[in-house]
């Protein structure tokens, strides 16, 4: 901001330096014309003003000392040699004015000067003063023209300044020697009240020197340097003063008096230049301050808006947001994050999680991820587990390094999302898929085994139709199991499903008789297969192969022998063609005997009685029924079909 203010000042002074020199030039020209108008009257012996010299020299002393100081301050800022020379010129002039207070007659005391007795001393002092000032100013103008861009190195400011000051003092010392010791050996400058020829030569000589400076300023520095333009105006007034004084040719004349006034005015010109500079800087500062206040207000508004937005986002989300420092201490946490940390808002800043409110191992694990992110310096996503207010949850935490302006990692920012439900669903799907795959493989294995069994034991000519029938029987049982969600299956339903291909015979020729029971999935499959084999055999060769044969399918639970309840099922055919014991046992035989025995851990008796086939199954009830002895509570007998 400091540089902005400075820039403002420079721009303004640059712009104004066009307008003001013309004003000061007009002032200088008006002063000069006024003096020229006075020329016919300058030798008039009036008015006699007793305090005139005192006021003039005092004014000179004060304003030129102040100007020298301001020029030196300017030099310290700009470090241009010309400014230092100018400061030296004004210091010299001020000190000479001070000296003049003691030397000139009628200044501190009536009559002769305080420390000089000769009338020639103040005159010589005056010319040393004018020439010295004019010479140093000319040197400054030439320095400004020759080396406009030269800057004295900072470390040289004080040595150079003190040397210039020493040189000024030395010059004054020699001036004093000339004024107080030698004056009587020098040509007289005042004869009676009038100036001598030497006096006139010295006067016009200093006028010429100053004229040279004015010419150089107007010729070479006019357009670019406000300070020198004002200096030029001051010199014009000085020259006018010397001209008036010289033209009057005598002390206590009008020209002599007005000349002194002009010197006082000239001494103030550069001082006023600095006062104006000061005023301009104040305006520029005020302007910059207003601008700054406006910008700050604007930025504060923007900041407030983005803070409000940030707060809305961070408070509105259920994700956990954190910012942490290099030591993993929390710098910021949104409400969701603060809640999970189990820490009151006042203690949250600076917390790491190791304060004892959370599981140490879990916290160490996420801190390791924090450190890893900061060490690698790149964003990463981790799965983290944290047990807190909502129980044990899994989070998907994305962490990114936080960098300072120079790019060093100074912390991290983190966004954590609770993915516990998603994880759970994923696991469930995985388990389900595994189970589905397992079941599918199992079914495939069963079908394959059945195909192999059918092919092994049956006539190849009827294999295809037998296999197809068995497959649909298996599928029917399977459907029933699926619709019961692999739980218990109602036995009567199972039987009806397996007899569906001869469904119209159930009731008229097939009698079902048994209590309502629920059977286990494994048992259901075996019983289903057995009933399928028995029924297809009856249709092809047994009681259902003619018009009047009958089948009775009965089941019951009976007596707990030694505490073990038994399940009994019988399939009895009557009224069919005469039955002979088959020569060769097919796969169907394996299914209804050995497979059922194996599956139900029971015993099967198969009798090929001439009047009809009889199949009897006896198995422990716990191997058949769902949930061991679970009988359907409703003992109401089902209507026979």
């Amino acid at each position, binding site marked *: 901001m400091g540089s902005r203010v400075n820039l403002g000042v420079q721009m303004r002074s640059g712009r104004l330096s066009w307008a003001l020199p013309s004003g000061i030039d007009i002032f200088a020209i008006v002063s000069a014309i006024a003096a020229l108008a006075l020329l016919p009257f300058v030798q008039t012996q009036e008015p006699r003003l007793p305090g005139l010299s005192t006021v003039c020299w005092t004014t000179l002393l004060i304003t030129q000392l102040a100007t020298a100081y301001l020029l030196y301050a300017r030099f310290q800022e700009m470090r241009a040699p010309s400014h230092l020379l100018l400061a030296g010129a004004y210091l010299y002039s001020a000190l000479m004015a001070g000296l003049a207070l003691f030397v000139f007659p009628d200044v501190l005391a009536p009559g002769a000067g305080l420390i000089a007795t000769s009338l020639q001393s103040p005159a010589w002092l005056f010319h040393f003063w004018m020439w010295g000032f004019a010479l140093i100013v000319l040197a400054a103008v030439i320095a400004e023209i020759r080396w406009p861009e030269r800057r004295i190195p900072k470390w040289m400011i004080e040595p150079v300044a003190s040397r210039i000051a020493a040189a000024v003092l030395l010059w004054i010392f020699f001036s004093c020697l000339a004024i107080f010791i030698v004056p009587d050996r020098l040509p007289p400058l005042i004869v009676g009240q009038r100036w001598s020829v030497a006096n006139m030569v010295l006067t016009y000589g200093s006028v010429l020197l100053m004229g040279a400076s004015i010419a150089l300023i107007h010729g070479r520095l006019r357009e670019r340097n406000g300070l020198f333009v004002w200096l030029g105006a001051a010199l014009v007034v000085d020259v006018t003063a010397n001209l008036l004084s010289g033209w009057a040719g005598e002390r206590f004349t009008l020209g002599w008096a007005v000349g002194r006034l002009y010197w006082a005015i000239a001494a103030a010109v550069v001082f006023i230049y600095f006062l104006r500079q000061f005023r301009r800087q104040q305006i520029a500062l005020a302007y910059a301050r207003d601008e700054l206040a406006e910008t700050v207000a604007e930025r504060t508004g923007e900041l407030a808006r983005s803070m409000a937005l940030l707060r809305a986002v961070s408070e509105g989300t259920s994700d956990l947001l954190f910012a942490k420092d290099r030591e993993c201490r929390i710098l910021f946490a949104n409400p969701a994050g603060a809640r999970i940390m189990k820490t009151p808002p006042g203690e949250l800043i600076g917390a790491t999680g190791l304060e004892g409110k959370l599981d140490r191992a879990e916290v160490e694990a996420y801190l390791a991820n924090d450190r890893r992110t900061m060490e690698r310096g790149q964003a990463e996503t981790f799965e983290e587990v944290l047990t807190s207010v909502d129980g044990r949850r899994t989070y998907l935490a994305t962490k990114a390094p936080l960098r300072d302006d120079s790019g060093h990692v100074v912390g991290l920012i983190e966004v954590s999302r609770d993915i516990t439900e998603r994880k759970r669903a994923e696991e469930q799907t995985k388990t389900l898929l595994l189970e589905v795959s397992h079941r599918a493989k*199992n079914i495939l294995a069963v079908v394959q085994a059945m195909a192999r069994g059918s092919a092994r034991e049956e006539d190849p000519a009827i294999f295809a139709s037998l296999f197809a029938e068995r497959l649909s029987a298996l599928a029917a049982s399977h459907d029933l199991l699926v619709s019961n969600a692999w739980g218990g299956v109602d036995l009567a339903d199972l039987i009806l499903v397996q007899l569906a291909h001869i469904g119209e015979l159930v009731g008229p020729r097939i009698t079902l008789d048994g209590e309502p029971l629920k059977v286990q999935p494994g048992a259901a499959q075996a019983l289903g297969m057995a009933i399928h084999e028995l029924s297809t055999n009856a249709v092809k060769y047994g009681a259902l192969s003619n018009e009047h044969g009958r089948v009775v399918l009965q089941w019951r639970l009976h007596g707990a022998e030694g505490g073990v309840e038994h399940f009994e099922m019988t399939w009895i055919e009557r009224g069919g063609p005469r039955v002979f014991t088959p020569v060769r046992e097919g796969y169907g035989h394996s299914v209804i005997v050995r497979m059922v025995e194996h*599956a139900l851990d029971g015993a099967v008796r198969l009798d090929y009685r001439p009047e009809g086939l009889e199949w009897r199954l006896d198995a422990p009830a716990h191997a058949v029924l769902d949930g061991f002895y679970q009988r359907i509570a409703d003992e109401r007998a089902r209507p026979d079909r």
Partner: protein
Amino acid sequence: MSARVLIVEDEPIIALDLEAILRDAGFRIAGVVGTVARALQVLQTRSCDVAVLDRNVRGESIKGVASFLDERGIPFVYVSGYGREALSAEDNSAPLLTKPIDPSELVETVNKVLSAAEGAATPAGSDQSGE
């Protein structure tokens, strides 16, 4: 003398198939059972030379049967619908066939474990037949 095989398989149709395959291959059947309890019962009353085990019978782990067989140096083969990953590390010693099985592979594997066991120890008992 042909070897006697114990089949532990809870899926009746598959058990029948395994029995038929092994019988056709010339093995004698020491028993076909569908529960761990029955399997142990058979092993205690009859002698057998090799076993074919389902990994999981009626929701029960076959581990008890496997360790019983290991103690007596009787070789066995796993037949399972689950892949190898579902077996625990200690079960990894026995070969695993996944369902649906290839009959010739089953016979080959059973013969392989039998001959490996005979090479490692004295041939399994020929004391008495339970059939």
